[in-house]
């Protein structure tokens, strides 16, 4: 009933953008949006292109290459860990974590995406790229 084209707009049928993102991670894919109109990439996803306003941008697989845009080390009694804003090679920025020694994370550092499972949920994290790798 809810997908009846007489009642609902078919451009927005199917899973919502957040569901598509999470389903991608569960399959080992970083699914970001690319607007068919203006070509802008975006993540996290949305029902429309934030750059030009066009509805229902489609999904593409991200390359997994990224760099650190900014980073902080959170220091708690039970240990320190990194929280970063990473900039994907395609342009969008996301909050994430760079794995390994948090003290070694530097702004501009090249990264490679990896999906890990935490508490039964797939989570996008990043590893420092091998030398000569992602840039």
């Amino acid at each position, binding site marked *: 009933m809810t997908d009846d084209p007489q009642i609902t707009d078919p451009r927005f049928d199917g899973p919502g953008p*957040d569901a598509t993102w999470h389903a991608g991670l569960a399959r080992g894919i970083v699914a970001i949006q690319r607007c068919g109109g203006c070509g802008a990439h975006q993540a996290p996803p949305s029902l429309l292109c934030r750059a030009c306003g066009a509805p229902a941008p489609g999904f593409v697989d991200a390359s997994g290459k990224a760099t650190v845009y900014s980073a902080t080390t*959170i220091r708690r009694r039970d240990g320190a860990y990194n929280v970063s804003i990473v900039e994907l090679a395609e342009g969008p920025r996301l909050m*994430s974590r760079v794995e390994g020694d948090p003290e070694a994370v530097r702004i501009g550092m090249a990264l490679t995406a990896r999906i890990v499972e935490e508490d039964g949920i797939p989570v996008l994290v990043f590893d420092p790229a091998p030398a000569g790798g992602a840039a």
Partner: protein
Amino acid sequence: MADANRGRIAIVGTGITNRWEAPGRTAFDQAQEAALLALEDAGLTTRDVDGLFCSLSASGTPVLNVAERLGLTLRHADGTMVGGSSFVFHLRSALGALSAGLCDVALVTYGSNQRSAGGKLVAMPDPQPYELPYRPLYPISSYALAAARHMHEHGTTREQLASIAVAARDWARMNPAAMERGPLGIDDVLASRVVSDPLTKLDCCLVTDGGGALVLTRADRAKDHAAPVYLLGVGSAVSHRQIAAMPDLTTTAAAQSGREAYRMAGLGPGEIDHVMLYDAFTICTLMFLEDLGFCTKGEGGAFAASGAIAPGGSLPVNTNGGGLSCNHPGMYGIFTVIEAAEQLRGRCGARQVPGAEVALAHANGGVLSSQATAILGAPSTI
């Protein structure tokens, strides 16, 4: 030609509870006390109020709760919630509502008991699923990410950030109502515990209780009150919700809200006598100094470290001691306006800025998410 909205409404009463640690009082108790103090200051009663502007963390329906408790009969209400800058957004809404005759007496009020209730900053329930798995500390890690990027791009140092906390404390030492009034040096800030690099505990605002309120009328009615302070300009801007969505971590939407406020007021940063900048963290003061044009982009650290914003400096900033040393009940923005108004009324005792005629109050909400700027003027500016 002057903008038609310049000086169109005025603050005619301010209320501040100065109860920064008040066990046994609810957020509503604080909001009500502040409202009554502001109305008494204006020579008005709750019977006169027909417009309520209210936001607080303790309730999703603050207007309903506060109106019931104060026994208000309202024609107009606005519960805009954009974090700690909400009250300066309310000033812009009140400008519209008062000017259009939708109400005649606008009460803006706020209260919090976050210190007594739990000792932690109380955030509205607003889960962010794209941040949650990474366990950022809310909100400090977002500000830390902005600070780290500012240091990377502009060479800003931890010592420069620390100088902002020290300047705020030096002002607080002249304010008998400030919560933290002990001596503080740069080394103390640098030696305090790092919570989220590069920010230490002493780069962070206080966690207090408290309440504040403002009463506003149209300028034609304001002349009947003892000490009106005119709203010369006000601008607001919404930039993002999550820090990763901020377009440029080193430039805030204060650039936009400030531009609108200056335009309406017909003034520039060189004509401001007194400045209040919402200092949830030291990096906030630094970036707002830049984005509001008090120094150039990238120079905020050096400007602050030069002593310019401290007592005796060229630009009096956060003269009450700020969120860093006076009070921070969670949504501090209303206190920037109250201190600015009180400076223009000449009521600030030892910390009074001599002859202040124009003040700027800037407020921040969320994680540098919403920004609002008000420029206030003494009657001589009208």
